[in-house]
């Protein structure tokens, strides 16, 4: 059967994936498959939140205080219009959760990307250059590692928020969070990349590249980097769960995303005030969403770590 080159290449890629050890270990573990499915569903619903959510919680015109604090649809006073009830401003809890997980995931993904880029760059430089540069970078990393990441993120976010005025805060919240979470997570990447770089740097292909006169920057980027990416992927997955938790915690403590465009953590913070008067759904549904998301991503990360580690096979 005649096949053009493009589809042929695509077919062979699919065959390679289906043939690989990673795919095999994936199909062998039911827990991982369920975790992957849940992660996929949460990502998809966050991505398509504007389309699939029943209400737009940010459209002030559609909110009515008459509908505030309604319990979930299945209880006696519930309204079938609002499946998981409404919050104090009459926002549909289900829709706010969908939009909220969108913000939580966005902050998580971007801050993990920021931490990874920063950590990989510093790790490559430290490992490849060695000497004094290496010593300085790694000493900073050592010191930072002795403090818990969440504390560092809290201190940075708190200080920056203290600097910014009330008006700025709403617009800058997203950036401040990403920078503070990113700065508190880079160490792990730097250490991992550095130790793999130390091994790679003495291999023959790097020496060959150096011999033909390539710029060190190009060697690091084109030749060393692709060979140290495996462990980085594992760290990034586990870090995503941690970053989502950190974002939620900072927002809960009041130094994260403000209440006008709530993330999951902000929703839990607002709902917490209503827990005692019996309106449990405002807190517990976003809380459950957060817990499920973190658990699923953690399980995926655990599996990926085992699957990519040849020693455990």
């Amino acid at each position, binding site marked *: 059967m005649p096949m053009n080159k493009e589809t042929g290449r695509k077919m062979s890629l699919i065959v390679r994936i289906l043939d690989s050890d990673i795919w095999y270990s994936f199909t062998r573990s039911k827990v991982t498959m369920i975790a992957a499915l849940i992660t996929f569903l949460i990502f998809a619903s966050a991505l398509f939140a504007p389309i699939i959510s029943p209400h737009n919680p940010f459209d002030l015109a559609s909110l009515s205080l008459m509908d505030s604090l309604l319990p979930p649809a299945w209880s006696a006073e519930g309204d079938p219009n609002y499946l998981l009830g409404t919050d104090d401003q009459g926002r549909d809890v289900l829709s706010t959760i969908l939009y909220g997980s969108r913000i939580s995931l966005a902050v998580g993904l971007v801050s993990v990307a920021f931490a990874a880029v920063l950590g990989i760059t510093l790790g490559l430089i430290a490992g490849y250059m060695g000497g004094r540069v290496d010593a300085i970078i790694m000493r900073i990393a050592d010191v930072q590692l002795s403090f818990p990441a969440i504390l560092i993120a809290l201190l940075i976010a708190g200080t920056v928020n*203290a600097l910014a005025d009330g008006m700025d805060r709403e617009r800058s919240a997203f950036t401040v969070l990403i920078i503070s979470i990113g700065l508190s997570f880079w160490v792990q990447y730097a250490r991992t990349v550095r130790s793999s770089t130390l091994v790679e740097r003495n291999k023959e292909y790097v020496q060959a590249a150096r011999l033909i006169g390539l710029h060190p920057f190009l060697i690091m980027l084109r030749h060393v980097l692709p060979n140290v990416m495996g462990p980085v992927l594992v760290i990034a997955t586990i870090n995503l769960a941690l970053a989502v938790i950190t974002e939620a915690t900072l927002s809960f403590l009041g130094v994260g995303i403000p209440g006008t465009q709530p993330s999951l953590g902000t929703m839990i913070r607002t709902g917490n005030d209503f827990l005692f008067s019996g309106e449990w759904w405002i807190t517990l549904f976003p*809380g459950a969403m957060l817990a499920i998301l973190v658990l699923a991503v953690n399980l995926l990360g655990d599996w990926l770590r085992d699957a990519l580690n040849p020693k455990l096979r």
Partner: protein
Amino acid sequence: MLAFIIKRFVQSLVVMLVVGLIAFVMFRFVGDPVDQMVGLETSIEDRERLREVLGLNARLPMQYWNFISSAAQGDFGTSYQFKRPVADMLGDRLPATLELALVSAIFALCAGIPMGVFTALYKDSVLTKLFQAVSLVGISLPTFLIGILLIYVFSVQLQWLPSFGRGEVVDIAGWSTGLLTSSGLKALILPAITLGLFQMTLIMRLVRSEMMEILRSDFIKFARARGLTPRAVHFGHALKNTMIPVITITGLQLGSIIAFAIITETVFQWPGIGLMFLQAVQDVDVPIMAAYLLMIAFLFVFINLIVDILYVVVDPRIHIEKA
């Protein structure tokens, strides 16, 4: 050996000076200290006098030195919000945080070690599966969510335990303790569990993996061959040998417990230094923020220094790099 200790000590000192610089920059440049201390009606001359008294006209390196040396003597300036010396405020609040941290560390040890031993000995028991599920939840759930769930179940639904505050406290030689009254003890239960749960899962996993490793070793086989009872083998020989890493990790975690107390104290409105710090962040009360930063940094640096030195003293196998 002495050279190693001196080198580590100097490193710690450098870290503290850098943290001190961060705190100083925060104090000096986040808002004008003078504006924060006086009202709008204060005259320019009065402001200038205050500026002179505070030493804000000196050269910056000199100001930094003054800041560091007074902080080292326990003088962190005056709170903008409360007009009280920050050192006094920290002193008032410290007992609450230390009691909470101590009780939750004890809880983590008392629950984590038996759970770890059990899961290592009975790998296929239903209880083991349950413990492992609990530990997965303990690692996946954020601290504040655990606190909220506990409040919802035990305070709102069952109404067994209070959800905020410390209860009644008794003053003993300037140390206010909640450990001697029944309401104080009741108020301590939920926050201590919230704060200790993560450490508990950590200790459980650690004890489990160490136990499983040691149970495979030769001296355990020999102890069994000598005909010792399983109880003597498991607790007298195996558990005893897992204790060194457990104690080290618990020591290192003490700093994290105090840092994570910020979250627990906020959820339970526990009047400790963590809650004070968070309120200071919201009110931009820079002297309190700077003092908290310095205190936490000192705690971490101190614990790490002690652990590093103890390692070398206790374990002769650790080779000291000659740099």
